[in-house]
């Protein structure tokens, strides 16, 4: 636990209600959504203004106390688990105001702790659209999304969080305020520090404000579901859709293992023999949506889709997409522990990757289901196990090691959207190079001379 003097200082600065020092409270900030051992912080503080945030960081820096910044604690790579027992957790959730939604210039200014889905809803109310939709959007924070460069279902057409960051203001390790980017589309004033802080996983600074790009919403959408006997046919169809110059806003797939488990649970009458299901949605101007939908249907039929379902209305579409929505919850119910991965490969390699995942799971006698974003090659192989069974869990770890080897061999990546944190740090060099690790560490040491910000995450410091 932190010293009484420090606790008292923070209580004076932030108010007692924003300083959590009891063992039970600290314990509840010792974990996040990653399947990793918890580490209890020495104190948890929740600044409610930017000035307070900067003062907190300054004070911790002066005292040489390690810090871990945390939003809602939903990341899947351990990025918000404290590094050491003397770490102080800084919550951004007390800074949760939407400062501006500008409908003329198409941007919004937000504090770091605004909840993604609430922001998207507020933007929608103003007739605009904020596309990034990570799976945790109902609870995740915008600064957490930026720090992890969160993806979502709309990546193929609309990009990911980094494509919407126009500017940021952040507090560096010493407590100083740094600004980069602006409210303008073009801005080349200084280094692109907004780009640097995006995806930095709390290792370079603490985001205190962000300017986010907004876009006009699509006027029309059209969805369909296609069934394939084989994963390769589904992949061919995906390639065919892209080759036809149609960029769907969502292009999701479920593999056979996932289909069977979802059908077992929902009794929805899914095609249990199918090698894969694709869920496709196109959006845009009504006339173009019409053309695109026709092109997609044609490609699906040419690529041996055994069935194509086109919903007649919103209710039917909702029902069709139930299988995708249910994928993770259903897999999670199969066994006590769910290890949700996000290995990503060039989209043409999806069949090879899915086959490798299944072969590896068989080799290590593990249950796995794979679903994910077929349009951008982002797979979610989901290993089902019980972490209390040490033998089984060590087989899961070995299987994941092998899976990443395959992903890298297929010119893919360890992590499409979940981040490195501590969970995947050991594989970083394999995908990049020794030089990348050394460069990143030198960068960190220069910006954070005492090595206080999330010190064990990413490449370490």
């Amino acid at each position: 636990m932190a010293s009484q003097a420090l606790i008292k200082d923070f209580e004076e600065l932030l108010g007692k209600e924003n300083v959590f020092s009891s063992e039970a409270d600290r314990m509840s900030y010792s974990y996040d959504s990653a399947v990793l051992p918890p580490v209890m912080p020495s104190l948890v503080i929740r600044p409610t203004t930017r000035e307070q945030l900067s003062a907190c960081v300054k004070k911790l820096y002066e005292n040489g106390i390690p810090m871990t910044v945390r939003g809602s604690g939903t990341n899947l790579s351990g990025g918000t688990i404290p590094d050491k027992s003397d770490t102080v957790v800084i919550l951004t959730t007390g800074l949760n105001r939407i400062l501006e939604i500008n409908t003329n210039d198409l941007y919004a200014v937000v504090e770091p702790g605004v909840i993604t889905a609430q922001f998207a809803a507020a933007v929608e109310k103003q007739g605009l659209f904020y596309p990034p939709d990570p799976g945790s959007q109902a609870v995740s924070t915008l600064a957490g999304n930026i720090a992890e460069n969160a993806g979502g279902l709309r990546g193929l057409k609309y990009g990911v969080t980094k494509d919407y960051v126009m500017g940021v203001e952040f507090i560096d390790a010493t407590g100083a305020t740094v600004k980069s980017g602006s409210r303008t589309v073009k801005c080349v004033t200084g280094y692109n520090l907004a780009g640097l802080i995006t995806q930095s996983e709390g290792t370079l600074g603490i985001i205190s404000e962000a300017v986010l790009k907004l876009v006009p919403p699509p006027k029309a959408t059209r969805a369909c579901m296609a069934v394939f006997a084989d994963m390769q046919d589904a992949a061919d169809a995906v390639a065919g859709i892209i080759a036809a110059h149609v960029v769907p806003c969502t292009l999701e797939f479920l593999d056979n293992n996932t289909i069977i488990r979802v059908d077992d649970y929902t009794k929805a009458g899914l095609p249990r023999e199918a090698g894969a299901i694709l869920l496709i949605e196109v959006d845009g101007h009504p006339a173009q949506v019409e053309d695109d939908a026709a092109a997609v249907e044609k490609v699906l039929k040419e690529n041996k889709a055994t069935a194509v379902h086109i919903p007649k209305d919103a209710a039917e579409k909702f029902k069709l997409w139930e299988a995708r929505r249910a994928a993770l919850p259903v897999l999670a119910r199969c066994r006590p522990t769910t290890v949700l991965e996000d290995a990503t490969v060039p989209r043409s390699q999806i069949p090879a990757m899915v086959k490798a995942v299944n072969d590896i799971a068989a080799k290590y006698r593990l249950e796995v289901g794979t679903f994910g974003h077929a349009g951008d090659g982002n797979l979610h192989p989901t290993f089902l196990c019980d972490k209390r069974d040490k033998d089984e869990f060590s087989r899961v770890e070995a299987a994941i090691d092998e899976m990443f080897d395959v992903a890298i061999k297929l010119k893919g990546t360890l992590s499409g959207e979940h981040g490195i944190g501590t969970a995947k740090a050991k594989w970083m060099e394999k995908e990049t190079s020794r030089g990348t690790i050394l460069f990143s560490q030198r960068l960190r040491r220069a910006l954070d001379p005492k090595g206080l910000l999330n010190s064990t995450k990413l490449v370490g410091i």
Partner: protein
Amino acid sequence: MTTLHELAQRLLVLDDRITDCMKCGMCQAVCPMFGATGMEADVARGKLALIDNLAHEMLKDPAAVAEKLGRCLLCGSCQAACPPGVKIMEIFMEAREIVNEFLGLHPVKKMIFRTLLAKPELFNFAIRVGAPMQGLMFKKSGDAQGTVCAPFLNFMLGDRHIHPLAKTPIHTRYGVIDEPRGSGGIKVAFFPGCVGDKMYTDMTEACLKVLRYHKVAVFMPAGLTCCGIPALSSGDVKGMLLQLRANIQALRNGDYDYVLSPCGSCTATIKEFWPRYALRLGTQEKSIIEGIAAKAMDINAFLVDVLKVEAAQPSNDAISVTYHDSCHLKKSLGVAAQPRIIIQANPAYKLTEMAEADRCCGCGGSFNLFHYDYSRKIGQRKRDNVVASGARIVAAGCPACMMQLEDVLSHNQDAVRVKHTVELYAESLH
């Protein structure tokens, strides 16, 4: 159970169920308590981690865990939204029982749950003595809801604006009801619940009127008492079982097809918790209780699903009513469409949905007694949604929610009135 190790061993029975939590944090989106405090220990993911750590002796402070467990409305919103389907309510109830057994139940709670609520005649006597006295202590709040308050009892009651106790409770008015089956052929056991019997008697009268109108015979025996949810929520299973035994005694010999209550919490308790705890009373009692539980039904659901009451075309000058989904009705029993139909069954009313209609109102039964400040804060969000809907009446299917809605609306000096759905429907029947 005297050592921490023994406590931990007992908590390990929850281990398999707690491990199901994948720590995704989705409970944060729906938890009313987390919405008010933003503290991780107030949301299900945090509480499950604390129970887990106590069970594995990583945490050695059961009082702190008990305190955190108490900061929960047991509204079940987290469980209803939980991706891996963790049985959160079950875990919380059992953990409260185990931890409170270790720490000992507060003597006042022990007196209330095991003596007052377990012995209906005593409870009724206390109310009979108390009700006429309330005029001496309480004064009218002067609001549209008709609540009363007691400024000089603020040290004890907080600044609560509450519905006055009925001069004559329902059981005194009617004694035992045991009507022969009429032309409708259906007979129901009617469970008014404590609040329906002693406080919201207009609501209960409305229910009886509706049942009479539909020619449904009523069985309301003597000796019914509290359904047991307050005791259970406080971890006092012993008290709950004493109450359950009294209720079974009253209900076991009736001839009826359904057990109806106007209280969503009572219905959910009868349907879900009575059978879960029944075995502790013995195998014979278990089968009787399972039989009763299988017949339990919310009165709105009964009117719509069994009697086929339908929505009417609203009249031109229909008054707009908004509906609050009680947690136990929607999240435990899955009853959400029927109460809305019941409101619309009266052409004098039209339904106007509020935002977040199924977000907890913040009452949470005994939660309100121990955390009135948070209860009010959570209630304020509900009040804001009610008022923003522009409705003149807010209806609910649970008198506990009605108490909470009246309190927050009264404090904001809003003109919106609070009614039970069946009261609105009853007005259209002559």
